[in-house]
């Protein structure tokens, strides 16, 4: 069974094509990395998967556990099991981390059912400890005045509290120093399991030293042009993206 299947996805914004016949399959339990130069459509893919309304979907399908989620509202997609760790998490003034995650958990419960506050905080604190987050953080306004590293850790905290089946991480390594990178990666590795798959979007190979992927895809101009194992990331790092272009894009079919 595949967690994620993207078939012939074509997406544009303001009449300009961004994703062009994009295809990707992630089997259950696997971690796939999506690499590629800036402006190639990686972040667009992440937002379209999460149901962002700014993009025009021309054609294609995105199946999450076999069900098409394309065209669904963002909250429905989230509740279906997709979590997007944002490249630039938004600040929500006055809403504490604890209350925000609690509201998100509550939204997943049937009407009339309430969260058990004691168990909730127990779980929250345990997961914060794992991410080396100070417990005082729970009372702080979501992402407001957070450093880059704190924001990313907070994304991973939310990801682990909301129990998604498919985690999409958009440039989670950007803005992280080496210590934060290790802590965040450990948080992700703890979540790896046979029931959950990951799409790790990154520009650099560095993150993949910590989160070792099963498959690495290289994206160029709106589609995946080459795939390989974890070694591919290292090859990319040493040879650069120009190599991809020469080798896989400009090469005659």
């Amino acid at each position, binding site marked *: 069974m595949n967690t994620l299947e993207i078939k012939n996805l074509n997406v544009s914004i303001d009449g300009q094509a961004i994703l062009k016949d994009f295809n990707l399959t992630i089997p259950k339990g696997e971690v796939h990395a999506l690499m590629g130069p800036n402006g190639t459509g990686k972040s667009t893919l992440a937002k379209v998967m999460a149901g962002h309304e700014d993009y025009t979907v021309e054609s294609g399908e995105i199946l999450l556990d076999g069900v098409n989620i394309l065209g669904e509202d963002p*909250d429905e997609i989230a509740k279906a099991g997709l979590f997007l760790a944002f490249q630039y998490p938004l600040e929500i003034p006055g809403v504490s981390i604890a209350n925000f995650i609690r509201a998100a958990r509550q939204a997943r419960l049937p009407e009339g059912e309430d969260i058990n506050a004691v168990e909730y905080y127990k779980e929250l604190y345990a997961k914060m400890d794992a991410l080396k987050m100070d417990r005082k953080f729970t009372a702080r306004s979501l992402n407001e005045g957070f450093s880059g590293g704190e924001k990313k850790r907070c994304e991973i905290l939310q990801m682990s509290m909301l129990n998604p089946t498919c985690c999409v991480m958009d440039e989670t390594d950007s803005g992280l120093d080496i210590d934060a990178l290790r802590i965040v990666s450990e948080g992700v590795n703890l979540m790896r399991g046979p029931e959950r798959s990951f799409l790790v979007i990154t520009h650099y190979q560095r993150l993949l030293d910590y989160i070792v992927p099963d498959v690495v895809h290289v994206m160029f101009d709106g589609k995946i042009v080459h795939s390989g194992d974890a070694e591919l990331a290292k090859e990319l790092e040493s040879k650069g993206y120009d190599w991809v272009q020469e080798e896989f894009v400009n090469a005659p079919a």
Partner: protein
Amino acid sequence: MSDTDIQDEAINVDTEKGNFKYPENYAYDAGVGLNEDTIKYISDVKKEADWVREFRLKALEIFKKKPMPTKWADQDLENIKFDEIRYYLSKGQQPSRTWDEVPDDVKETFERLGIPEQERKFLAGVEAQFDSEAAYSRMKEDLEKEGVIFVGSSEGLEKYPEIFKPYFGKVIPTADNKFSALNSATFSGGSFIYVPKGVKLKQPLQAYFRINAENFGQFERTLIIADEDSEITYMEGCTAPKFETATLHSAVVELVALKNAKIQYITVQNWSSNVFNLVTKRGMADEGAEVKWIDCNIGSRLTMKYPGVVLKGKGARGEVLSIALANDGQHQDTGAKMIHLADNTTSNIISKSISIGKGRSTYRGQVHMPKHLKNCKNNTECDALLINTNSRTDTYPAITTRGENNTVQHEASVSKVSAEQIFYMMQRGLSEGEAMSLAVNGFVNDLMKAFPMEYSVELKRLIDMEMEGSVG
């Protein structure tokens, strides 16, 4: 009509809390329109003393002479059709002391609004007004023994003129504005409260104002006198069903805090979007006294309300904490007035407004510190939150400060809930309404901490409901 029929009638409407009505059935109806006969009718039904009747008739003259304040206020005021409004409707009942004696339809109305339940839980006394008159009024016995008076306006003026007459219409004179004149001519219901020297009420008194009839004008009149060293918290709530036609609510609320007394007045209004809500509220604070207004304005077509405090005695304190939420098609024109008339007086204004869709919020503030005063302080903060680009917010602060060591501080901010913030929250599984609601709650969060718990909970619920309703 049997109980079941009444139930069915009531169930066949929108399920939003507050938006339901029972069939009209009144013993006293002053008819449509406003003239001397209307006033005399009200006075006759109430069997009022001559001085009250004269007070009303004089007020009617002033009302007629005063122009609409459309020079500065919303032109929508011109759409109030004074000739089509009904000014007095009552079932001819005396306010009951037990809920069992309240007529079924009225009792059910208040039960659906949760009033008897709240009374049991945390209130020292409740008055529940249905259109023009109170249907229920009761205060805990021990407070009666301590000499606390909690009655309607008519009963107050009739039974305790020596207490209430000296202050009635003094904090807010009839001619203060067109709508205070209208209220002075037509007033009915409301609360008259006297707290004797040194008596400190531990639990709040509450009044609930309910409009049930269409084309109706509700004009309650409230006067609270807190004698020296006493303390009282008073809360009011209000709702009306959604009618096709405009409904008018125009109250006058006067507070008198004598030496070292404290009055806290809390309003949570949840008017339906056809109500013109034009209310005059002012408190007077004597030496060392404190008057605090907590004012939450949700709903209505147009609200104009600027609670004020006249800081008359040395060291008096005044405070206005307000939240206004203007949804599509609504205008919340609110603010505060602080009139410093003695040395060492301090005032604090914190105003938060939220505008959604085509909703519009206006803040008008007046802080007055004349030349001869020393060591007065005012702090004003007003923050606006805009949800989507069509909404509008305006701030009109008017500050006059002279004199020695008087300080005034004014801060204003405008922020927006962006589509990206909503997307972020929805990506976590919240619906659009829940996301907006959370953003709004976050915006008012620090202010809500200053409110009593029960009212924070109620307010949060109202915001959630309003935001759910604002998503297309």
